[in-house]
Each structure stands twice: as structure tokens, then as C-alpha cells.
């Protein structure tokens, strides 16, 4: 008797925990091998760009929190920086330092989710618990600074909402000291684990040319050997003042994408330590008009968020509300190559590849 064989269509998501939110991929399978993959984003679409058109410039800030909610500080930063450029506002030095400190903390927090979630996607829930334990401490620090753990809304056009509270600097220093030990723990628990390595090494290889062609950015790009980090190649804010490396990996496989984030966390620690040591006194808010009304015109600025290049494009018609706001969300653009990347791999590898891309659906769907 002949066995009837045909391709099989499998819906992965939108309620699948390893899609890191509400993401759906329609996989066409031949046995266990992926023949075709159709990503279906959009389940978390809230129309933030449209909502922004009906808000004043300051009122948009809380909505940017909801883009990449794992690193809301960085999202705030990307947006306020664009408005500041449009209005030609000079941000006080202390505010810039605070931005760097909280921004890098947010980067660590976001990478901790990526690292832990990758481990748990591949079946090692222990690693997840360890990274989340340390992430909690960063969220505690954020809570001290702005009152919220996840959706910070901390930055304002022209500076930051409030100065650092008393006790923040010692607490942050204590955390950084502990965190260096924690990084060794992750390396022992996850990086060095043979099962984890076998599941990720040489899986989902992304070549440097293809990564550049698809305008991928962030850790995904750097794991393929392209040393493109906006903090170095097109420095903004006060990043030129700090000494840090941009870690690079060359294989472009899942393991490199994972391990690069661990290395980046160590670099962020260095930046925060330097910033805390040389934190100047002074105001945290520039002198800005009471009603924020940028001149008519348009502006585009970029920052290096935890996921890649976060760009903000604003068109102003001279009224107190933006005429158009567009966010270049790195997660969304990094997803663009997913369908190609998973073709030919097994179902279980799809989880590894998706995990290594580190998407966050608030940002993908906007």
C-alpha cells in the first residue's frame, strides 16, 4: 500500500509562547522540514502612528513606550531626540548622562529577555529564570526613577522628567557589580550548555551580504560580522565620551546572535559605570516653551535601540500636533528576512531562529 504523502500546513502562533507575543507564521511542512513560511504580523497593531497625529508632541511620549515595551526608555529617547532636532533644542549635559544610563540599563533589560527567552524556547527554563531575576533589579531601578517598571515615559522633550532620586546611583553601582557575576552565570548555564550549542550552532545562518541587503540592524547584523553600531559609526548624544567596544561575531548563526547579546551587555555595563562615575551636576531640563510648537518641516533621526536602528520621522506643519509620525522599528525590519531564513530547517529550528532574532511584537505591529 502506498503511503499518501503531501505537504502539511501548520499555524505557529499567534498564541504560541515562543513567538514572543502575538506573531503568527504559517509554515508549510514536508515532514518536519519547512518548505515555505508566511509570517503574518499585525495582531498587536494599535495604530500608534495615527494616534500620534491627534496628540500633542509631549503626549506622544507614553505611546512610544508601547513600541518596544522591553526597552521603553530607548523608544522614548528615539522620539524625543527627533523633536529636539526639529526644534533645535540643546539638552543639558546631566540629562544626556541620565539618558545614557537609563538607556543602557534598558538595553541590558531587553537583552536579558532575549537571552532568557532564547534559552526557554529551546527547553531550558532555568536560564530564563536567572535572567529575569536580574532584569527585575533593573526594573526596580526604573521604578525608582520614573514610577513605572515597563512603560517608563521618563524622557521629555528637552531632557528628562525628573532628576535621579536619592539612592539611585549607589543602587545602580551595586547592581552592576552583581551583574558582572551574573553574566558568568549565564555563560555557565546557557552558553556553555552542549545541548544549547548543538541546537543553535550553524543553525539559521545569515550571511553578511544578505543582512546588509535586507537592511537588518542591531545584534542580528553584528552577529554576521558587520560592525555597524550607530553609537560608534554615527555617534549621537554623548556616546563619543565613553570607551566601549562593539562586539562582533562572524558566523551569523543562532548561537552568535545569542552570544553577541551577552557580550553587548558587558559593554553596556562599562558605559553605565563610566557615566555614573562622571555624572555632572546641573539641570535636567532645557528651557523649552510651554506649548511645544516646532516650526513646519520634517526631521529624521536614529538611535541604536536594543533591537537595531530605531528611526523616527516627524513631519510638522507648525501646529502643536505632529502632522505625521513614522517609526522605523528594527524588529519589524529584522523580521523581513525570516521567511528566507527558516526555509529548509526543521520546525524545532524555527523556534531557535525566531528566538535569536529577538522580536518584540509591540514594535513589529506598532
Amino acid at each position, binding site marked *: 500500500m502506498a503511503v499518501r504523502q503531501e505537504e502539511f500546513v501548520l499555524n505557529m502562533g499567534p498564541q504560541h509562547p515562543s513567538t514572543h507575543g502575538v506573531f503568527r507564521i504559517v509554515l508549510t511542512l514536508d515532514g518536519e522540514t519547512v518548505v515555505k513560511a508566511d509570517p503574518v504580523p499585525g495582531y498587536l497593531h494599535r495604530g500608534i502612528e495615527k494616534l500620534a497625529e491627534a*496628540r*500633542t508632541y*509631549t*503626549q*506622544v*511620549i*507614553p*505611546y512610544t*513606550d508601547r513600541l518596544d515595551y522591553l526597552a521603553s526608555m530607548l523608544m522614548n529617547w528615539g522620539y524625543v531626540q527627533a523633536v529636539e532636532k526639529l526644534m533645535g533644542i540643546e539638552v543639558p549635559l546631566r540629562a544626556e548622562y541620565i539618558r545614557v544610563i537609563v538607556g543602557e540599563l534598558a538595553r541590558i533589560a531587553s537583552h536579558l529577555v532575549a537571552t532568557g527567552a532564547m534559552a526557554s524556547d529551546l527547553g531550558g527554563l*532555568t536560564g530564563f529564570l*536567572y535572567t529575569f*531575576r536580574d532584569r527585575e533589579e533593573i526594573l526596580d531601578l526604573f*521604578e*525608582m*526613577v*520614573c*514610577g*513605572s517598571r515597563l*512603560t517608563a*515615559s521618563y524622557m521629555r522633550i528637552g531632557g528628562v*522628567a*525628573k532628576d535621579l*532620586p536619592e539612592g539611585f546611583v549607589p543602587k545602580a553601582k551595586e547592581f552592576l557589580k552583581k551583574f558582572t557575576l551574573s553574566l558568568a*552565570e549565564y555563560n*555557565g*548555564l*546557557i552558553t*556553555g*550548555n*552542549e*545541548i544549547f*550549542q548543538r541546537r543553535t550552532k550553524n543553525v539559521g545562518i545569515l550571511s553578511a551580504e544578505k543582512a546588509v541587503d535586507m537592511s537588518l540592524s542591531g545584534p542580528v547584523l553584528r552577529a554576521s560580522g558587520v560592525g555597524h553600531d550607530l553609537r560608534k559609526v554615527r555617534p549621537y548624544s554623548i556616546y563619543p565620551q565613553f570607551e566601549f567596544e562593539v562586539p562582533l561575531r562572524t558566523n551569523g548563526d543562532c548561537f552568535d546572535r545569542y552570544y553577541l547579546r551577552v557580550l553587548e551587555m558587558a559593554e553596556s555595563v562599562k558605559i553605565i559605570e563610566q557615566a555614573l562615575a562622571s555624572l555632572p551636576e546641573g539641570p535636567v531640563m532645557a528651557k523649552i516653551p510651554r506649548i511645544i510648537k516646532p516650526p513646519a518641516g520634517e526631521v529624521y533621526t536614529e538611535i541604536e535601540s536594543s533591537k537595531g536602528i530605531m528611526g523616527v520621522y516627524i513631519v510638522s506643519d507648525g501646529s502643536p500636533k505632529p502632522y505625521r509620525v513614522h517609526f522605523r522599528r528594527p524588529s519589524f525590519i529584522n523580521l523581513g528576512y525570516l521567511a528566507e531564513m527558516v526555509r529548509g530547517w526543521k520546525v524545532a529550528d524555527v523556534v531557535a531562529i525566531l528566538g535569536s532574532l529577538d522580536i518584540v511584537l509591540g514594535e513589529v505591529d506598532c
Partner: protein
Amino acid sequence: MFGKGLLKGMKITMVRFFKPKETVQYPEVRLPLPDRFLGKPEFYYDKCIACNQCVAACPNNVITLKTETVEKKKIVTQYYFDQQYCLFCGLCAEACPKDALKFTKDFELTQYKRQDIKLKFVNPEQVAKKKAEVLQAALEKQAAQEKQAAQEKQASADKQIASEKQAAGNEAAAGVC
């Protein structure tokens, strides 16, 4: 050797196993919250000057303010705070010039009934009291004004009498000549 990494990982978890727990037994044990925590909002009726700045600052139309003008003074008659739409961004409290709106550390915001989610901060007694105060103040002010007006009138009348007297005196003096 294959498995070395696994053993190292297990060692880490074993060491961790004998260390104190990181988690707390939530409802009984609570972690301290920082002062800036954005929990359930609180409204101080007496501080509010009905300037509407919180309403204008809110991105999501959470706050509705009802006012009434008594004796040319705006009085808040109701202050709704629809928590379900609140982003807890704190822009409203930041905009308030009188610190009449503050966020507390209460984070347990779940309610059994939907209508309980919408907070009504002002009760009728407060409004009645405030109205009475304003009226009282207006009356006092009016009385004070009247008194002052009367005094002024008196003063100007006195002055007039004095000047008339003087004029009469002058005339008399002229008559003498």
C-alpha cells in the same frame, strides 16, 4: 568532554539552591515601593483651582472635570478619573500647578464591578462646603467693599464739608473787607 558544560550548569543551579530565595510570598509579604510609584491616583479637592491643565495634558482623555461658576469663581463639582484608559504616564500630575493630583502606591486596581473602575473623586458635601465658603467669602468681600465705599464716601463728604467751610470762611473774610 561532552557534558562538561551541562555539569557546570548543574553546579550553578545547585549552588543557587542553597542560597536564600529571591521571591517573596506576595499577598502576605510585599516589597517596598519607591516614592515615585504611579499607582491609584488621589485627588485633593481643596487644592484644586479648576484650571483644567490636567485634562489638557492627558493623552487619553481619562480625566473629566465638571465646574460651576459661583460668584465669578470656578468650583469643581465633579472630577472623574476613568482608570481603565489611563496609561499611568504621570503627565497630568506633572501639569498640575497645585499638586492637587497625586499617584499613590496602591497598585491593586482590580475591581469586581466595571462601574467601580471609574473613579469619582468629589462628593456633594465637599462641593456644598466649597460653595458655601465661596459665597461666604464673596459676602464678606462685598461687605468689606461696602464698608470701604461708605468710609470713602464719608471721607469725601467730610472733605467737601471742610472745603465748603473754608470757602464760606473765605467769603466771610472777603465780606469783612
